[in-house]
């Protein structure tokens, strides 16, 4: 008993110190004076309950460890069928889901479609960051900077040069990639930890620049009235802004309905996501995808085989950045208004949480996680306040409990068919 008693007392005291100071006492500024207020009785009750729970848990931890086991989640992977036949079923399932995603918005409410579009943006961001973190094993904490580059590129191009969405889209991707290249080039030669902190700093630099370069970016006021994308010159507004263009509803001779625009944006986002999924899917099967994997496992062996680690990492970093650029371009077109507020560190953290929850390297996982993490806070509004707290906790918890994420990555293994290679 003594063996667990002292650690238990210690743990209880630690819990009490951690919670009582920050939760139990509240600071308030009244006039010029700083005053203290005790928290409500319920908070104190919770503090003592937490302390008691920690104490009891530590006291009986030996007896408990046998009884309580963290439940293992049924992995999505294990539910999927295996083998050749499985592949066919998977293809069918993917077709079915894509078809459903295409038809669904015509029957759903406008709000739901709008939310789904937001989720699609996060899916794209998650997939892009997944290349960097999941496939290449590089921690990028300033991913939102490339998102900002894409968003501001379209906003500024349309504001100053009247460039249309479709022309701006590739430019946004390229420019974000260029920023990724310029930042990655010096930093990727160094150890991984430095990359994390430098990207964090870079994210801040971009935000500060956007905030203070008022003449061009509008500073904290941001840029508004960014034109929505059109489709082959057909606009989705009631009246065409551009005299050469025609509104969509007039062209088809139907009544104007603002939900056309919402659905169009949704479909556009879906298209971008599908392209992203395809490209990443290809990447993992290409030499560069194998090189990322190899580099994650053993960079010394890679170098001895003539792979330039900096170039391999830089490819991942640059490609990842370009997807953020595309997403940013779409984001600013959809919102019609952007400001530095949208590109704070918290956004990077949310995208990282998506990757971590879904499973590093796993596309399906990231898609699921992006949907969960964007839709859930909308459904439970009171949850909003606790969102970031939960995300932080989630990252720690996932790393310790299930670092592979909800849907562990399954890399496509290239197989040597031994049939035609019979000696």
């Amino acid at each position: 008993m003594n063996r667990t008693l002292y650690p238990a007392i210690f743990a209880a005291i630690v819990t009490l110190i951690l919670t009582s100071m920050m939760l139990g006492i509240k600071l308030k500024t009244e006039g010029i004076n700083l005053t203290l207020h005790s928290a409500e009785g319920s908070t104190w009750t919770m503090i003592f309950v937490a302390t008691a729970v920690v104490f009891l848990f530590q006291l009986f931890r030996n007896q408990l460890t046998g009884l309580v086991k963290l439940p293992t989640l049924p992995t999505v992977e294990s539910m999927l069928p295996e083998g050749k036949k499985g592949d066919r079923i998977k293809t069918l399932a993917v077709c079915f889901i894509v078809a459903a995603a295409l038809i669904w918005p015509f029957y759903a409410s406008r709000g739901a479609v709008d939310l789904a579009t937001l989720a699609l943006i996060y899916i794209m961001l998650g997939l892009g960051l997944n290349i960097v973190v999941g496939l290449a094993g590089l921690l990028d904490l300033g991913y939102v900077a490339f998102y900002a580059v894409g968003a501001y590129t379209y906003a500024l191009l349309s504001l100053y040069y009247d460039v249309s969405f479709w022309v701006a889209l590739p430019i946004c991707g390229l420019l974000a990639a260029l920023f990724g290249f310029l930042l990655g080039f010096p930093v990727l030669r160094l150890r991984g930890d430095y990359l994390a902190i430098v990207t964090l700093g870079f994210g801040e630099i971009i935000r500060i620049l956007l905030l203070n370069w008022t003449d061009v970016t509008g500073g904290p006021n941001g840029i508004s009235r960014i034109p929505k994308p059109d489709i082959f010159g057909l606009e989705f507004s009631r009246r065409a802004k551009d005299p050469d263009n025609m509104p969509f509803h007039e062209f088809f001779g139907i009544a104007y309905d603002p939900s056309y625009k919402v659905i169009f944006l949704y479909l556009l986002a879906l298209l971008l996501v599908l392209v992203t999924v395809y490209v990443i899917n290809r990447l993992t099967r290409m030499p560069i995808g194998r090189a990322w994997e190899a580099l994650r496992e053993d960079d010394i062996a890679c170098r001895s085989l003539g792979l330039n680690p900096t170039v391999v990492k830089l490819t991942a970093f640059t490609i990842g950045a370009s997807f953020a650029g595309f997403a940013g371009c779409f984001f600013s077109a959809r919102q019609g208004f952007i400001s530095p507020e949208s590109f704070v560190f918290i956004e990077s953290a949310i995208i990282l949480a998506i990757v971590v929850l879904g499973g590093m390297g796993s596309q399906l996982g990231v898609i699921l996680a992006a949907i969960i993490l964007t839709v859930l806070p909308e459904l439970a509004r009171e949850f909003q306040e606790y969102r970031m707290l939960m995300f932080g906790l989630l990252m720690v918890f996932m790393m310790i409990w299930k670092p592979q994420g909800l849907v562990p990555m399954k890399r496509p293994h290239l197989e040597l068919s031994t049939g035609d290679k019979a000696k």
Partner: protein
Amino acid sequence: MSRALLEVSGLCMRFGGLLAVNNVSLSVHEKEIVSVIGPNGAGKTTVFNCISGFYNPTQGTILFDGEEIAGLKGHKIARKGMVRTFQHVRLFKEMTVIENLLVAQHMHMNTNLMGGFLKTPAYRKSEQRAMENAAFWLDKVNLLEFANREAGNLAYGQQRRLEIARCMVTRPRLLMLDEPAAGLNPNETKELDQLICNLRDEFDVSILLIEHDMGLVMGISDQIAVINQGTPLASGTPAEIRDNPDVIKAYLGEE
């Protein structure tokens, strides 16, 4: 004699106050097997690390095919046709055997991204050729049946052979083996012996070898260099080394 493929002269490597390698010289000619031997801690692997570009030598010149390579980065040296294995096997353990060999051919492959996205004929052909080359070498080292296994699941001796195959798919001119027989049983050592000779005779590779197994070294080497405490002690043919009193003293101690 023709110009040497690899010519190391006056190589020194200093770590802080420690002179790990002092004035070592070596040369490897085309289709030659040269061994570096010496007691543990003599600095053999450090010499290897300098030649293969993992360390930046403090002093000395390293000529590969007449070109100065001292101080170049490891991957650049590998691209010039000089690859190595490691004392402790360094495979990509979670990748399959065949993938290990595909990664090794990265520098010869069509890595054009657009080609890969669109699966162009050039890209497919390059993948196909890499696959065939990998299969060829797997066959050579008797690992063809394990092609789709994870490399980490192979037996130790097989991992050693896979590491050599992984070097060979890069089509090197000089192969550097760091204690390839370490941890192998006598049978496997004999196979390795044959494999190494085969590589030289059939595929025109020159080989630089660090080894402890004297039987292996004496049997296959054309030239041997002995290093003791970072300094060169002797060099010559196996017969010369066997009778060299300094070498005997270093290995067996003072009589």
